[in-house]
C-alpha cells in the first residue's frame, strides 16, 4: 500500500519538517506521494518533487486551501487518502490541527507525534511529557500518523518526481480566516536550528532578552523561552519550548535562567549538548545539563557575547 505525505509549507517554500517526515514515512513502506495543498504553491510542489524517495507530487492549488483551514484540508486529505495505507504529516500546529479530523472522517485512530518507526504498523511515541515511551501498534486499515520531525534526519535531495494537479476543491461555509500575526525574525527557525538559546523567568523582562539575542546572533542560533517567560509577556508564544510548546533537538541547547520543570525538559532533552546557566545550583536543569554554570546570567551573558 502506498503512503500519502502531507507537505507543510507557507505556499512559497517547503518547511524543513516535511523532508524529515519523509524519512519517517520511508520506514513505513515505499511509494510515497506528497500532497501540497495551498494557494499559488507551485514552487513548493517543485521543491517536494526534488526530495529523494517521492513517487509523485499532488498539488491542490486553490484559495480554499490558502490558510490551511482544517475543515477544508481535512476533507481533501480524507478524500484523497482513502486508497492509501498510511497518511502522514509532521506534528506541527498545522498537522495537529487537521490530521485528527482526517482520522475521524476515515473512522480510524490517529497515532500522534511518533519518534520511531518499528514497522509499517508499529511506532514509538512519547507520553507523559516524555517521561515514558510507548510502543503502539495500529490495527486500522489506514494508519494516520503525525511525526515529531526533530526525531528524524531530513531526506536527501536528488529526486525527480512527477507533479500532477488535483482539482478537488472543498470549501466549507462554517469557518473563515480572519487574520494572522506572524513573528518576523532573521534568526533560524526554532525547531530546525542547530543551536538554540532559551531564556526563562530569570530573564526578568522582555528587554533583557536582548542579551540573549546578541549571543544568538553571534552563534547563528534561534531564541526560545520557557512557558513562564511567555506567560509573563517577555516574549511571544511562538518561542515557547516544551511539552505544550515546540519540541527542539539542536546540536546545542543553552538554557538561561530556566529551572528545568518536566514540561520544559520534555521539549529539549533530546538536544545533543545541553548547557545550563542558573544561579541556583539546586535547579533541576543541572540534572540534564552536560555543562552547568552556576552564576548570575546578567554577568555571564555579556561575557559570553565578548568571548564568541
Amino acid at each position, binding site marked *: 500500500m502506498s503512503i500519502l505525505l502531507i507537505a507543510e509549507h*507557507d505556499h512559497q517554500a517547503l518547511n524543513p519538517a516535511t523532508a524529515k517526515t519523509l524519512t519517517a514515512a520511508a520506514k513505513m513502506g515505499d511509494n510515497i506521494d506528497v500532497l501540497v495543498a495551498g494557494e499559488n504553491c507551485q514552487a513548493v510542489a517543485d521543491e517536494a518533487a526534488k526530495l529523494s524517495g517521492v513517487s509523485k507530487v499532488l498539488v491542490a492549488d486553490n484559495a480554499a486551501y490558502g*490558510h490551511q483551514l*482544517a*475543515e477544508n484540508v*481535512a476533507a481533501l486529505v480524507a478524500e484523497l487518502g482513502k486508497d492509501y495505507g498510511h497518511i502522514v504529516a509532521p506534528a*506541527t500546529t*498545522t498537522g*495537529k*490541527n487537521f490530521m*485528527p*479530523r482526517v*482520522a*475521524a472522517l476515515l473512522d480510524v*485512530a*490517529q*497515532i500522534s507525534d511518533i519518534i520511531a518507526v518499528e514497522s509499517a504498523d508499529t511506532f514509538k511515541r*512519547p*507520553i*507523559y511529557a*516524555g*517521561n*515514558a*515511551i*510507548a*510502543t503502539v*501498534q495500529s*490495527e*486500522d486499515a489506514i494508519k494516520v500518523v503525525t511525526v515529531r520531525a526533530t526525531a528524524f534526519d531530513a531526506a536527501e535531495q536528488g529526486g525527480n518526481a512527477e507533479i500532477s494537479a488535483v482539482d478537488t476543491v472543498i470549501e466549507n*461555509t*462554517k*469557518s473563515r*480566516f*480572519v*487574520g*494572522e*500575526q*506572524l*513573528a518576523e525574525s532573521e534568526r533560524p527557525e526554532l525547531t530546525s536550528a542547530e543551536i538554540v538559546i532559551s531564556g526563562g523567568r530569570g530573564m526578568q523582562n522582555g528587554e533583557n532578552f536582548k542579551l540573549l539575542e546578541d549571543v544568538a546572533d553571534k*552563534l547563528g542560533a534561534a531564541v526560545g523561552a520557557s*512557558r513562564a517567560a*511567555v*506567560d509573563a509577556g517577555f516574549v511571544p508564544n511562538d518561542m515557547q519550548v516544551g*511539552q*505544550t510548546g515546540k519540541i527542539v533537538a539542536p*546540536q*546545542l541547547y543553552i538554557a538561561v535562567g530556566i529551572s528545568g520543570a518536566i514540561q520544559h525538559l520534555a521539549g529539549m*532533552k533530546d538536544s*545533543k*549538548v545541553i*548547557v545550563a546557566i542558573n544561579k541556583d545550583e539546586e535547579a533541576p536543569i*543541572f*540534572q540534564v*545539563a*552536560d*555543562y*552547568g*554554570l552556576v552564576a548570575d546570567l546578567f554577568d*555571564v551573558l555579556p*561575557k*559570553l557575547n565578548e568571548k564568541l
Partner: protein
Amino acid sequence: MKVLVAVKRVIDYNVKVRVKPDQSDVDLANVKMALNPFCEIAVEEAVRLKESGVADEVVVVSIGPKAVQEQLRTALALGGDRAIHVETESMPDSLVAAKILKGVVEKEQPDLVILGKQSIDSDNNQTGQMLGALTDMPQGTFASKVSVEDGSVEVTREIDGGLQTVKLQLPAIVTTDLRLNEPRYASLPNIMKAKRKPLDTLSTDELGVEVKSTVKLLKVEPPAERSAGVKVADVDELVDKLKNEAKVL
C-alpha cells in the same frame, strides 16, 4: 447559549510518572490525579462566558471509570452548572472519546463545545478535532482568545509561526491553549455547593457507541536517561569545553 465542556481525569502535572517494571504501562497506583490543566482552562472560559452573560448554562462531561466523578465535582466547584458522567471501564482512546462526546452533543445540543487542546498523559491532541469532524462542526484549536458574537465565535489560535484568527459559525468546537485564561481556585463554599449540583450518569450503550480500540499498547519504556555532566567554573571554561570537548561551536 449552552456550553459543553469535556474534562479529563489525568495524573497531576507535578507528578513524574514511573514505568512499571514489566513495561506493560506506567504505574498509576496511588498517584495523585487531577483535572487535566487544559480542561481546567476550558471550564474557566465557559464560566467566564456565563458570568459575562453570553452563556446561560455550562454543562461538564467526563468519560471514564467512576473515579472521574471527582474531577466532575471539581469542574462544578469551578462554576459548572451540571455534570454528565459517561461510564466506561477504562479511559477510551481519542476516537472513542470523540464518538461518545458526539452522542452527548446530540442529546444536549450545545452552541459551543470547549475541550483542552491535549491531555497531559497521552499528549495526543486529537479529541476536539475528531469531534469536529464527526459532528461537522468548525474548530478553533489552541485558542488564546475567544469571543462570541451574533451566532459566531472568533478564535485566536497559537500556531508555530505566531497567532491566527478564525471566525466560526456556531455551533463550534474550541480547544484551549495555556494562555487563554488563568483558572480560578475553587473556594470552599463552592466546593460544598458543587456536591449538590446535578450529576447524571450515561452508559455508552445509551449513546450507541462501541468502546473498542484499534491501537494496541505493546510496551511502555522509560526514556533514555541523560546524566548530569560537569560544572564549569566560568565563561572561559564553558566556551573552551564547547569548542574543544563537545565540538559544537
